[in-house]
């Protein structure tokens, strides 16, 4: 929604060309699931083709076959009208398929130029000056500003993504694949990416864009295909897309995605009618230099039943704050009180036992173990607990029953409870994490970007569960880069900028403006 406000109003409509790539009757099976079922899709040059679908619908699998990561079981892939086998990512690149994955594939310790040189033949000394000139040239053509000499680690997520797009294009890609490219970007960066996509298609490149944000899909897309349970259930062509209003389009898409005509957007503000209880979590003068972004002098308190939102652009110390609170980073100074007693010196496990929970946003890095079964991942934080272990001995029956319950309650799409969690789709991994964290008793819960990577429906249920957690008397700290999410859920919203809290505002009618003022106030320093 944020993104739409800032999107340029008239995005140039480009004439659609012939299909560059086409998938015809493609089926892909994994043990226990049909990830893609007889899907036919044409990607035309000069078009942004948006792929939509709920979590686990098969979007990543579909583009995985174009980028050479997966092979179709049935059906065929045509490039420029000729049937092709895309056997490896390298071959995909040679055929003009460039993919930008959700997680950066750049080497952080190298410069941009050296990252570009990596693909070259190993026996030749890379022509650094030539590459750098090429980077500047292409960047200028696309209206980007990229410093070829910059270390990748010094770039923001959005800049890294631009670098990856640049790299794909310099290797001659005619079809650019972006899988959930905007999920981790700030609203600003997301808009910039959208504009870049428009410029690319204006130059005749085809773009495949996967997203969960419907407004982005409508703002930047020319053609929209919707997947549902692996099947393609609908396609909205450019004329239909432009002929309808935004809300008509959204309604149509939601109907296709979920097979119902539920109202998708639920941006109704929650009236703050909850009764707030005693103060549960108090933070005073908290400092920490151990993380990437130093955290300075943080003070706030959260009462039972209250949701404190923490807004701010990603990478301004939110993650560090959450980790200090959870005990994963050592506190420099200051105090953390839970139910009135000091907790700053306690270990992660002790804090958890005393009722503090931390729902991490790094679902694959620390939230789950990809090679462990789904059932095991539900229990990572309760190893040894009754009734799943008795006298230290595992009880597979109990573990299986709880897993089946979670899978049902949280609508986790998985072939079985013994499937390794790494094989699930991104959104379903997130649901595994949420199922683990949202059950059981707690005093205070810290959520870090709880809805990232989820589809519209799952976002709604997750927000409902967060609200229920507060209603049941928990103190909730909700870290999010999505202002609408905070405005929907929080009682008060704090703004974090460069490791400090710039202020806390009540969530009333002019909260959006007040937060905007606080965010820009930091710039003056």
């Amino acid at each position, binding site marked *: 929604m944020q993104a739409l406000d800032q999107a340029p109003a008239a995005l140039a409509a480009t004439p659609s060309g012939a299909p560059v790539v086409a998938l015809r009757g493609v089926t892909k099976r994994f043990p226990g699931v049909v990830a893609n079922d007889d899907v036919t899709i044409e990607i035309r040059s000069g078009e942004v083709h948006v792929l939509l679908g709920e979590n686990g619908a098969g979007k990543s699998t579909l583009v995985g076959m174009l980028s050479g990561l997966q*092979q179709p079981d049935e059906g065929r892939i045509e490039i420029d009208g000729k049937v092709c086998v895309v056997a490896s990512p390298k071959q995909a690149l040679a055929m003009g398929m460039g993919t930008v994955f959700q997680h950066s594939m750049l080497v952080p310790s190298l410069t941009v130029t050296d990252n570009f040189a990596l693909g070259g033949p190993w026996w030749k000394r890379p022509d650094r000056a030539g590459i750098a000139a090429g980077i500047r040239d292409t960047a200028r053509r696309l209206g980007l500003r990229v410093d070829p000499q910059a270390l990748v680690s010094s770039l923001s997520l959005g800049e890294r993504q631009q670098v990856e797009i640049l790299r794909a294009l310099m290797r001659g890609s005619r079809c650019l694949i972006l899988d959930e490219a905007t999920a981790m970007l700030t609203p600003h960066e997301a808009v910039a990416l959208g504009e870049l996509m428009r410029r690319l298609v204006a130059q005749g490149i085809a773009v495949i864009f996967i997203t969960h944000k419907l407004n982005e899909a409508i703002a930047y897309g020319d053609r929209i295909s919707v997947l549902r349970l692996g099947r393609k259930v609908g396609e909205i062509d450019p004329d239909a897309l432009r002929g309808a209003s935004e809300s008509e389009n959204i309604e149509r898409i939601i109907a296709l995605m979920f097979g119902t005509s539920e109202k998708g957007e639920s941006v109704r503000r929650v009236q703050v009618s909850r009764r707030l209880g005693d103060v549960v979590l108090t933070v005073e003068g908290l400092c920490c230099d151990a993380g990437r972004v130093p955290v300075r002098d943080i003070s706030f308190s959260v009462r039972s039943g209250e949701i404190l939102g923490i807004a701010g652009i990603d990478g301004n110390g939110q993650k560090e704050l959450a980790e200090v609170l959870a005990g994963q980073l050592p506190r420099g100074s200051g105090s953390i009180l839970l139910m009135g007693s000091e907790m700053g010196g306690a270990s992660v496990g002790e804090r*958890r036992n005393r009722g503090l929970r931390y729902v991490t946003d790094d679902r694959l890095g620390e939230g789950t173990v990809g090679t462990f079964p789904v059932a095991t991942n539900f229990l*990572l934080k309760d*190893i040894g607990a009754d009734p799943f272990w008795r006298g*230290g001995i595992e009880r597979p029956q109990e573990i299986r029953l709880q897993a089946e319950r979670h899978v049902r309650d949280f609508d986790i799409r998985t072939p079985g409870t013994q499937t390794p969690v790494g094989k699930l789709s991104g959104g379903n991994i997130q649901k595994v994490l949420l199922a683990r964290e949202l059950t059981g008793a707690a005093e205070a819960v810290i959520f870090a970007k709880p809805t990232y990577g989820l589809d519209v429906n799952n976002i709604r249920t997750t927000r409902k569960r967060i609200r229920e957690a507060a209603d049941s008397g928990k103190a909730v700290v909700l870290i999010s880069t999505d202002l609408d999410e905070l405005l929907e859920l929080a009682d008060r919203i704090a703004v974090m900028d460069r490791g400090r809290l710039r202020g806390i505002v009540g969530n009333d009618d002019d909260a959006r403006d007040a937060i905007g003022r606080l965010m820009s106030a930091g710039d003056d320093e």
Partner: protein
Amino acid sequence: MTDEQVVSATAQSAARTDTFPRLLRVVSLGVGPLVAALVLGGLVLLLMGFNPLSYYAYVVQRAIFSPSGLEATLTRMGPLLLIAASLIVAFRAGIWNLGGDGQYLLAAVFVAAIVPLMLGILPVWTNLLLGLFIGAAVGAIWGLLPAILKAWQGLNEIITTLMMSFLGVSLANVLVKLAFLDPATTTPQTRTLPVEARLPRLFDTSVSSGLIIGLVAVIAVHLIMTRTSFGMRLRLVGANPRAAIHAGLSVPTLTIAVFAISAALAGLSGAVDILGTHGNVRADWNPAYSLTVVPLVFLARLNGFGSIAYVFLFSALTIGGESAARRIGVPSFFSLVIVAILLITLGLAEYLDKRHQERARR
């Protein structure tokens, strides 16, 4: 709900129809590389000017089909299995304890030095138990420094355990030559434990009960790692240390525990070898079991039962190979050549299998 049912139903039927080919695959994946390794090893033998068929026939005959050979094979399995258990604990927890040789040898030397001295004082049974305990304790102590450095300083344990292993082997030698020398003999070695004071034989064979200790240890380790909460914690640390921290586990404490168990098992292996088979330690003796068992446990994918099979095979190869060295003249380390080739053929088989599966899907 209905979707889920459909999904799980297809999963089940898929599992059922797959069972037979899968069994076939497992067998061909397990046996194929072994056969290939033996054939390639045979080629090496041919190049060396030996008749591979007679070599293999001799090895099998001596190590498995002759009663005394089979007994020697089974006896040697005891210490090897304990080493395997030691490695499985460590590797499953993501810790590379490559210092098993030092832990083994130092434990062996201390056991060989102390146990004969107490012969008259204590009954044989307590003496043996004490010996086993000393072995485990010495091994664990030798693993302590790398454990502490890893747990609190994050120092790479591959380097520290290897260095401690070299130190341990040298120290063991020095001890044998200087401190624990048997005054009654001229060759530099420790006092010898009389045969009647060693670990009891099984029934009326010459197989040492060390085999039982080894089997119990490997199976116990396997069950602990797969069925208990403690094992689950260790596997979590091994699979993803950041997830372990996030889940509130004390990674340093678990690291120390893993080192203690792993090194104690390596030390126990030394004790069993001395108390069951050798009875003394000669200077410059170092069977280097630990580093030779590393590939075996990996071939078995850190599975306890698989390790038993591989250890049996390896034990038979070495026992047979040692006789063959005396009789035919093929160097006794040829068994290591076979293990090396086996590693390569197994890797190849896995690669081909993956390629084949991908091809089949297309």
